[in-house]
């Protein structure tokens, strides 16, 4: 067993020296995710301003007019047009004249007066097929509901339907929904990139060839690289969680300890992925491209933006082989729902298995290449 990991200690020590020798890289590696966190974290909130809105008021009452006025007065909506029928409402959205449609049903005033829950239907334009557009749609929708909630908050409970094919928000704040997912994406990008570049740099400079002539075992080399970058990623996670909690005011409903512990298998997996990439890439530029290639699936197919339940069957299957899917489940589970080990152990086990698999794959590739 010890022979399998031979040499990890000197490699590990050397790698830490590289890291502190190059404070520029370290700084960027740690700072960049934070910058992105702020950018995306705030973008979700600030994006929703002056959305062209079409209103269908079927109620034609004092109350309904008041609601529409309040909406129009807010910064979120810009009243683009009012229409008289469902057809016109959908038509306006189809034509792209409005990005949001609000329908106040005919029984709105009566239900308010009854004390039963009044319903307002909010439609978000989900037709844009470009993925970037869809991302914006999703965030728009989330923030929309939040804004509506705030606007109408004084009037009691006000559930508002939002087309579920576009978005899904278990909580009332957009940051709550997006920041936990963002953690997975940022952590993954940073970790894969750092470890892959570190190994490919050795390949480019010829030190890797020198190392293969020493008794260092492939797993020793890999573990020696994983420890320093794992420590780095873990520290970054702690910083991100702190910012999430105190800057974005996202409360962590579950146990922070469980969250940190359950992050370890995810880190293991992404470190392993970085190693696999490093065995494929011959140059640092290639390593960079391959690392970035892992980002898109993790953003769009992991449930970070689109709800997995509403994906076509094929993508549902694909999402199951993406590590970020499981980690996002863990993050949202613990942070938003206060879930514990009992609820999430399956995700933890899957990630652990994925981690071991990627590392074995990398080691196998490494030995195979060395043998020519």
């Amino acid at each position, binding site marked *: 067993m010890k022979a399998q990991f031979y040499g990890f200690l000197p490699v590990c020590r*050397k790698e830490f020296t590289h890291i502190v020798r*190059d404070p520029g890289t370290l700084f960027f590696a740690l700072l960049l995710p934070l910058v992105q966190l702020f950018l995306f974290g705030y973008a979700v909130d600030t994006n929703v301003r002056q959305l062209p809105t079409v209103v269908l008021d079927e109620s034609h009452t004092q109350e309904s007019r008041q609601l529409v006025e309040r909406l129009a007065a807010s910064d979120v909506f810009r009243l683009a047009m009012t229409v008289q029928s469902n057809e016109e409402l959908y038509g306006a959205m189809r034509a792209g004249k409005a990005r949001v449609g609000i329908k106040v049903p005919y029984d709105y005033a009566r239900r308010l007066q009854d004390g039963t829950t009044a319903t307002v239907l909010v439609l978000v334009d989900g037709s844009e097929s470009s993925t970037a557009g869809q991302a914006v749609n999703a965030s728009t929708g989330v923030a929309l509901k939040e804004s509506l909630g705030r606007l109408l908050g004084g009037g009691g409970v006000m559930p508002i339907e939002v087309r579920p094919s576009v978005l899904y928000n278990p909580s009332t704040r957009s940051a709550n929904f997006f920041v936990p997912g963002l953690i997975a994406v940022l952590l993954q990008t940073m970790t894969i990139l750092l470890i892959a570049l570190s190994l490919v740099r050795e390949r480019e400079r*010829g030190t890797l*060839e020198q190392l293969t*002539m*020493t*008794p260092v075992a492939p797993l020793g080399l890999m573990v020696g690289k994983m420890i320093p970058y794992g420590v780095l990623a873990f520290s970054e996670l702690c910083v991100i969680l702190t910012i999430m909690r105190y800057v974005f005011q996202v409360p962590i409903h579950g146990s922070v300890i469980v969250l940190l512990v359950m992050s370890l298998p995810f880190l293991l997996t992404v470190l392993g992925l970085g190693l696999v990439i490093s065995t494929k890439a011959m140059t640092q530029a290639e390593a960079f491209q391959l690392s970035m290639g892992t980002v898109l699936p993790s953003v769009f197919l992991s449930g970070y933006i689109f709800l997995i339940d509403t994906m076509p069957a094929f993508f549902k299957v694909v999402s199951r082989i993406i590590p970020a899917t499981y980690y996002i489940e863990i993050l949202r589970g613990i942070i938003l729902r206060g879930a514990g080990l009992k609820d999430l152990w399956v995700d933890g086990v899957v990630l652990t298995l994925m981690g071991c698999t990627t590392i074995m794959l990398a080691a196998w590739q490494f030995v195979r290449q060395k*043998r*020519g």
Partner: protein
Amino acid sequence: MTPVITADHLTIRFGEVTAVNDVSFAIGKGELFGFLGPNGSGKTTIIKALCGLLAPSEGTGTILGMDIRRDAAEIKRHVGYMSQKFGLYEDLSVSENMGFYAGVYGMTGAQAKQRKEEILALTGLEPYLHRRVSVLSGGWKQRLALGCAIIHSPEVVFLDEPTAGIDPVARRSLWDLFFQLSGQGVTFFVTTHYMDEAERCGRVGYIYLSKLAALGTIEELQRLPEANPAGTSRVQIETADASMMLGSLREMEGVREATIFGRSIHALVETSEIERLHARFPQSTIETIEPSLEDVFVTLTYQIMKASR
């Protein structure tokens, strides 16, 4: 004497390419063996195979009696290898590089410290101990690379073009270092494409187009029948304008090879034609000489090229 390094009909193919073709040799303890060959002739590939980094397609080899196919892991502990590129970390200091390689070979504490001091004394790197490698000159880098390659006191050392791209003074002092170590019983296998370096070696192998074309001491190579075809003589022609003469010389019948050597010309001519040479170039002194190592390799190369056509 049992050989320390052997190659036994070693053949290595990469797909269609045969990088090493049926190469055999044996190298004894403490020998400084020079391996000469142009770029792409298969030198690096042979070293990698002997170090156990590449499995040979056919044939085999041994290091200190260990089979390169079976005992690759054990061979690593007894072999020092300095690859063609610097195997050094440029952002680490001299001391950190040595410390890392010592650690990788499982040396710790007092043992590592003592060995580091020995290497520093040997290589003269003491004054640069805490300098980053990136600021060292090529010569010092290579001394450090050698120091790191022998940190575990290997009995066999493979050096792949160790002097490529460094200045002549550094080159000479690096060779002094090789001789010093080889005097202590370390066996050296050094590849080069510098003729003068090959001439320093006790024995030389010449590899051309993946095949071992010649092997032996300098004297043996100079007397090689292939390098001195029957009925020919190797002559040196001293003349005022060698470059002028070369053209007409090459066109003469009976002149097989002619090349400029400094201010004179070395030529391989048919012995019966020497009289005509004297008549043709009366002002020049023409004398028979032993072939230089370069003459030998050039003659061999021509023969191989002719045969493969």
